[in-house]
């Protein structure tokens, strides 16, 4: 049990509020767009220079001049605007984007994040991730609770080079939801089938369990 990637994305979509300007990272976070509640209106920003990102095009609408930050072909909406990369990061760095939802390799108990490089392996680059975590009002991470070897990804301190320090507000993992509380994490929700024992065994970061812990039932 525990949440699938799609279920984590659905949980992350609940972080969005009516009127929000939203930047979704590449990978699992892009799935969040499929789960936005119908009664709220949000505007998606793509850091390559677009506000008001629409869905993937139909085959006959594909336009090479219209892509998102993951280089995927997309469409525009009636509200869309286009701008330069400098203007795009004025939005991001300047605190005009309400929330960013990103993937991560590691998050620390103080809200540090590492998600851009593994020393000794091929380094692809940070793209816009460092600007996003530094500038966006609220930053939420979606990630597997443990890595492929079963080792914790929620750590006392990140072992990989940082993307940003003390910048993460909330972490949604396959096993539950944690808030960053300055010097420690607080477990606020348990995924269906996840237990406190399992989380204790797969978490290195210091965390407390909320008095108001929400235990999700299997759907």
């Amino acid at each position, binding site marked *: 049990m525990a949440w699938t990637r799609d279920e984590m994305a659905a949980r992350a979509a609940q972080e969005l509020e009516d009127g929000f300007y939203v930047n979704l990272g590449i990978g699992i976070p892009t799935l969040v767009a499929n789960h936005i509640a119908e009664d709220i209106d949000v505007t998606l920003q793509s850091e390559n220079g677009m506000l008001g990102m629409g869905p993937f095009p139909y085959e006959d609408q594909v336009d090479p001049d219209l892509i998102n930050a993951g280089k995927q072909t997309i469409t525009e909406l009636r509200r869309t605007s286009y701008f330069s990369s400098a203007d*795009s990061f004025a939005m991001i760095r300047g605190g005009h984007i309400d929330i960013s939802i990103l993937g991560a390799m590691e998050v620390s108990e103080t809200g540090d994040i590492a998600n851009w490089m593994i020393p000794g392996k091929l380094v692809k680059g940070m793209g816009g991730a460092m600007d996003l975590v530094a500038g966006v009002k609220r930053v939420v991470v979606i990630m597997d609770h443990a890595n492929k070897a079963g080792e914790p990804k929620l750590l006392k301190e990140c072992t990989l080079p940082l993307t940003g320090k003390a910048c993460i507000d909330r972490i949604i993992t396959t096993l539950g939801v944690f808030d960053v509380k300055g010097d420690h994490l607080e477990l606020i929700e348990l995924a269906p089938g996840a237990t406190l024992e399992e989380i204790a065994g797969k978490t290195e970061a210091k965390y407390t369990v909320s008095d108001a812990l929400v235990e999700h039932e299997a759907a």
Partner: protein
Amino acid sequence: MKKVYPDAKAALDGLVFDGMTIMAGGFGLCGIPENAIAALHATGVKDLTVISNNCGVDGFGLGVLLDNKQIRKMVSSYVGENKEFERQFLSGELELEFNPQGTLAERIRAGGAGIPGFFTKTGVGTMIAEGKEHREFDGETYIMETGLTADLSIVKAWKADPEGNLVFRKTARNFNPMMATAGKVTVAEVEEIVGLGELDPDSIHTPGIFVQRIVKGAFEKRIEQRTVRERESA
């Protein structure tokens, strides 16, 4: 002064030399100056420092300059789409300077605007901040980044007029407008050159003062990730 040149080769004539710094517009393969890149390839100019958000893919975009070993150093934010890049970087043939994407965009904007340095919170506490001046403003820590300029900027726009006024199209704009301001010489390649007065002066993205040479190009516009959805059947 006549700015319109017959082709990209002519537009680069007298501008290229070994060891020069070139800014190249584009995000991924979107809005890249395909014609100037091909012309640079043909000149054989080498030891280039290239400032560009990405480095093309194998065999296309800036990848063709890599394949020809014309690039000595890249200044980029993300280079993950290129095996030859990986090979040259890991073998030590190619130097690489990573910049956060927003920092790269702002360094170019600043360079073109005559601003030698600025402070940003992006990268504070990371390896990007190592060796850089730190300063507090209103209790928050920032690092100093410097403006960037280039010997030559090659940019891609949708339309130009003979004055060099440019209009970009959709997300093909990206880094092109800032780079146009930051080159000692800027060569713009476009899909269409229209007559004077045909561009709405209120809708010009890059004023012609930033563009010295213009060429009408032919564009392949390769797509990296063709993602589509199915029409629901009636």
